[in-house]
């Protein structure tokens, strides 16, 4: 290579490059004997938590490489269920775990290797935030969070030493409203179908989540009493869809939205004054200087959560690295990053060191901000004196009525949903 006259052929260059790539990704552990720095973990998941900043910080703090792939939730489910060789770590939602776990593509985690296991929010262990709480309906993380022994494909009913997923991101969702255009307090999910908002309401056109929002509304109206909103019978699905089809025909809805941007535009333009919404969308509307509230409602929240699962194929040094990654994940830095976006992390207390007192007070404790609240990307989200919609962690996560879920009658529900859209 040091010769002045360069005369490699293209073929020899390619060969060299190929050998080099192979050595850096595959051969390393064999040659340098179990050096964790040469491990590459392949993680895939939905866009919400596949944050590049996390991969960069992992390299910095732990030394190994984390490769991330972002997919939509249907593709995530498919990949976790059918291609176990294609990943080391699956970042999936709990309802996806319910579908995927029985395929045996994931392995349980030994909780004794998870240092902060005792500090993990009880939402994910016992399911009870306080000893008096009731486990919410739907695919509550606690119901699919444990198995009785390694290799088991059935979920355990209580906390055991084997955990399926380590929780990463979660939040409590509710309706978003335009307080300036409504001009009166909104307290119930039933308001979504209030004729007062005829032509000014919207719901999301993603069947698995939309049906839950519908159920919250129907129950709040006193029309239907569900045994489990997260696992409806076909009659319950029929009744729910019938109520909303009637409302749709009467012109209650301005539009349905499918993407995050659509929900922001509908709200910001004033086309819609009340609708299903996600937390960052509220932030986006507020960032345009338009009042928008993530309205806490008396019936409670519809909650969702994701977690990291380990591929069944993971072993040896890569498995050790994965445990190290998980321990790092819940040790605080990621939590602080997520909490500043309005999400929650599995071990909230550890995030405190990575946030200032003002941020911690605003996001976690529900206190009035003492100075500007800024997002990780530098946007101003709230000023001094503002408080978070819904209040503290305990207030919000303590009022979860149901969790995102997958129903036994899922295919039936999807067909009914298509009928609703076509009606």
């Amino acid at each position, binding site marked *: 290579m040091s010769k002045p006259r360069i005369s490699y052929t293209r073929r020899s260059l390619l060969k060299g490059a190929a050998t080099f790539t192979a050595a850096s990704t595959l051969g390393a552990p064999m040659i340098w004997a179990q050096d964790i720095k040469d491990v590459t973990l392949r993680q895939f998941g939905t866009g919400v938590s596949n944050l590049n900043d996390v991969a960069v910080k992992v390299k910095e703090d732990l030394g190994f490489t984390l490769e991330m792939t972002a997919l939509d939730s*249907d593709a995530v*489910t*498919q990949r976790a*269920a*059918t291609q176990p060789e294609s990943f080391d770590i699956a970042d999936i939602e709990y309802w996806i775990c319910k*579908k995927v776990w029985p395929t045996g593509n994931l392995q349980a985690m030994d909780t004794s290797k998870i240092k902060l296991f005792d500090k993990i929010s009880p939402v994910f262990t016992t399911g009870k935030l306080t000893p008096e709480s009731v486990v919410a309906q739907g695919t509550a993380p606690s119901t699919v969070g444990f198995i009785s022994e390694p290799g088991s494909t059935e979920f355990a009913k209580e906390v055991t030493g084997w955990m399926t997923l380590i929780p990463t991101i979660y939040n409590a969702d509710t309706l978003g409203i335009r307080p300036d255009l409504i001009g009166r307090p909104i307290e119930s999910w039933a308001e979504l179908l209030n004729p007062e908002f005829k*032509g000014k309401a*919207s719901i999301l*056109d993603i*069947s698995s989540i939309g049906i839950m929002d519908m159920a919250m509304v129907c129950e709040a109206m006193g029309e239907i009493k569900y045994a489990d909103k997260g696992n409806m019978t076909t009659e319950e699905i029929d009744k729910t869809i019938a109520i909303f089809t009637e409302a*749709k025909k009467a012109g209650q*809805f*301005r*539009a*349905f*939205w*499918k993407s995050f941007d659509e929900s922001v*535009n509908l709200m910001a*333009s*004033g*086309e819609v004054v009340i609708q299903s919404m996600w937390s960052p969308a509220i932030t986006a509307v507020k960032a345009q200087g338009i009042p928008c509230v993530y309205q806490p409602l008396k019936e409670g929240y519809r909650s969702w959560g994701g977690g990291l699962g380990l591929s069944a194929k993971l072993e040896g040094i890569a498995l050790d690295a994965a445990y190290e990654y998980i321990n790092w994940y819940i040790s605080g830095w990621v939590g602080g990053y997520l909490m500043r976006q309005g999400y929650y992390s599995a071990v909230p207390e550890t995030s405190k060191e990575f946030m200032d007192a003002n941020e911690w007070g605003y996001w976690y404790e529900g206190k009035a901000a003492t100075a500007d609240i800024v997002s990780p990307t530098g946007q101003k989200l709230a000023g001094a004196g503002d408080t978070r919609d819904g209040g503290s962690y305990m207030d919000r996560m303590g009022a979860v009525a149901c969790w995102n879920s997958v129903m036994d009658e*899922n*295919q039936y529900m*999807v*067909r009914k949903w*298509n*009928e609703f*859209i*076509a009606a």
Partner: protein
Amino acid sequence: MPRSNTTIGWLMAAPLTAVLAAFLVLPIIMIVIVSFWGATEFSIYPAFEFDNYRFLFGSAVTWQVFGTTFRYALITWALTLGIGFTVAYFLAFHVRTLTMQITLALICTVPFWTSNIIRMISWVPFLGRNGIANQSLLSMGIIDQPLEWLLFSDFSVLLTFVHINTFFMIVPILNTMLRIDKSLVEAARDGGASGLQILTNVIIPLTKPGIMIGTIFVLTLVMGDFVTVRFMSGSQSANVGRLISNDVGLLQYPSAAATSVVLLCTVLIIVAGLLRLVDIRKEL
């Protein structure tokens, strides 16, 4: 040497045949095959079953959605034909110089400098409750309440369809009109025909091939669309394209394939019918 001529003919046709076979015929065959497969929640498996078709034809939604698709296609066709024919007629018979004809025809293509989606989405702020249209009407005192039906309605869907597709009607009609021998029109006038008679007895019959080609363009574009319907109706109405895209989103590929096959057959039947009305090959 007739034999070598045949060989050369075959050789010349071979590249195109190969391209069409690989990129058109083969994918369609695949779609037909998959439409008989089965699906679970996260995988598809080879089978030969009629479940997908049985469900498709057994569901009232299918009929309703096909009805909506036809309705959109017919109304859009009628409007684009009316506008397209008028514009082409103006360009062909009223604009005198060729330079001016070319200039004006090129102006018609200006909207195509941006993407389809952008042309579509730009209607949203215009037609919205607080949009320019409503604001103007309000300030002129024509209405005292914003018109709700301007956006997220059949009206906005059709408006966008007409906006996007009229050009596909203008070009083929203009093309055939420009080939009409002007002496035919003069002869008709000398023979004492009125303007209307010239239009119906001379120009329209001679423009038929252009109208047919434009019709085929517009019908196939509208019947295969799903984006326009989704955005402009605010996801509130569905056509066949949306049915297919929903299935794909939920990983139900066999069901999506079955719907596609039915749609493809429907469109092919319509096109075959249209081609029987006019022998395009002869007329061109």
